[in-house]
């Protein structure tokens, strides 16, 4: 059963075009949404949260479209961005009060429990919070209500490894009941390797790769060897050939593994390596 369905989503700006993005995220899974700065990650996530309006295409969260009922659509989504979105001069009690007014499913008890557990200062205005405290407050505000989809836009950027690990644990707990999902954009691809089930890779507003993470890693090989050993057919199949002190390094789709001879070494690539070589290939 799909929780998030994106169909032919496009957004046109004067200097950037997000074109025909389509994907589905089943219930109980985490999708890593990756790409370079300016690739269209935040644009896609902002379209899902309806902060931006699409030029064309459709988005459904748990079968609901924002065009049908904006309020109930937004009730189902929790959003955490790299930028702290609560007004600077708010205190924890103001946020609690506002969210309680707006969200039917908001639990003040749960919110208070999370605020206490994470030792968030109730007396300070939120502008005086550390980055880690700000992220935790955003999580508290989202986890204190019944959401179906969590949208994270580089939410772990700038966090120390301990808090990052905590966030990843929260995400795994969030999807544990098999009814909720997470879409998660980040530059820290090692985080995705730990928790993502699907990877969507976007470059210059267009989809490059979209697959289950394990399939993606199984279906690609990291090939190394001497540059002069590359023959024309292999050259065509290799993705993002990069020279280094020992020769070259590139990614090869698994279905072309028959092209490899004893002149080359190969190994299972990381998500990071796959993404970097695809980007190099696109830019070449």
């Amino acid at each position, binding site marked *: 059963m799909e929780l998030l369905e994106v169909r032919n989503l496009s957004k046109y700006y004067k200097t950037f075009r997000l074109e025909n993005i389509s994907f589905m995220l089943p219930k109980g899974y985490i999708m890593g949404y990756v790409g370079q700065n300016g690739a269209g990650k935040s644009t896609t996530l*902002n379209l899902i*949260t*309806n*902060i*931006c*309006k699409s030029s064309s295409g459709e988005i459904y969260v748990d079968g609901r479209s924002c065009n049908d009922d*904006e*309020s*109930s*659509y*937004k*009730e189902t989504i929790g*959003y955490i*961005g790299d*930028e*702290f*979105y*609560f*007004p600077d*001069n*708010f205190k924890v009690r*103001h946020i609690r*009060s*506002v969210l309680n*007014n*707006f*969200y039917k499913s908001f639990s003040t008890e749960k919110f208070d429990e999370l605020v206490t557990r994470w030792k968030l200062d109730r007396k300070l205005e939120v502008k005086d919070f550390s980055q880690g405290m700000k992220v935790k407050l955003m999580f508290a505000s989202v986890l204190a209500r019944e959401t179906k989809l969590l949208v994270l836009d580089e939410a772990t950027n700038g966090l120390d490894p301990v808090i990052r690990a905590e966030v990843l644990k929260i995400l795994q707990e969030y999807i544990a009941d098999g009814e909720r999902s997470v879409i998660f954009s980040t530059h820290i691809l090692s985080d995705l390797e730990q928790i993502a089930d699907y990877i969507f890779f976007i470059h210059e507003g267009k989809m490059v790769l979209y697959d289950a993470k394990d399939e993606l890693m199984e279906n690609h090989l990291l090939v190394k060897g001497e540059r002069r050993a590359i023959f024309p057919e292999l050259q065509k199949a290799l993705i993002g050939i990069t020279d280094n002190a020992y020769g070259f390094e590139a990614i090869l789709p698994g279905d072309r593994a028959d092209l490899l001879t004893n002149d080359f070494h190969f190994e299972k690539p990381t998500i990071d390596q796959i993404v970097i070589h695809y980007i190099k290939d696109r830019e070449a």
Partner: protein
Amino acid sequence: MKAFYFAKIDYIKARTQLYVLLVITAVVVVIMQMSKDMTGQAGFMYGVFLAIVFSTTPFGNCTRKDVGFQQLLPATTLQRVMGRFVYGLSMLFIGIGIGLVAAAGYSMLTGQRETIPLPLCLIIFAVGLILITVQYIFFYLVGESKGAQFLSLVRMVPGMCFFFGSIKLTGEIQKDPSGAAKIIEMIGGNLDSIGWGSVALAVLVMAGGILVCTRATMKKDY
């Protein structure tokens, strides 16, 4: 109901301003008492002037991320815009309240009893509401968060025009009461109707303003 919750967000953000308003009320009473030129009516107008100026505060302290936060809340664009107008309208009532308190304070301190006629109150209220609506339309068309850049330039203009315009008008009437008498004669006993009519007109302008602002923001990205 959600419109009131949006107005509440504006109040929380601008809560320091409310404390400032209380201080200003006291200052106005003292200035009125010291000044020979000012009257209770001027104090009343000053209250409305403050309301017109302070009603734009949510645009002044609004950043792109603040607007984004409000966009995330489960509500419609109309509810968001109505919330802002509820804030503006309530500021106008607060301003009138301050004006009445200032006028009463003036009467107590000077011993001069001065009544402010109801039709005048209604007309001033209507002018205040129309000016607030015009300001809001301007800020919504410019862009809520971008409004802050223009705010320092335009914020004082409508309120000042209102305040000094009404002071000037009062002065002119005092200098040459015959002109005003002629107008009053023309109006006859319809002063109350004009007062209520102007309020009705202002409410219509505000309703139109809400629709214009909603349309202007409906397709905007944040």
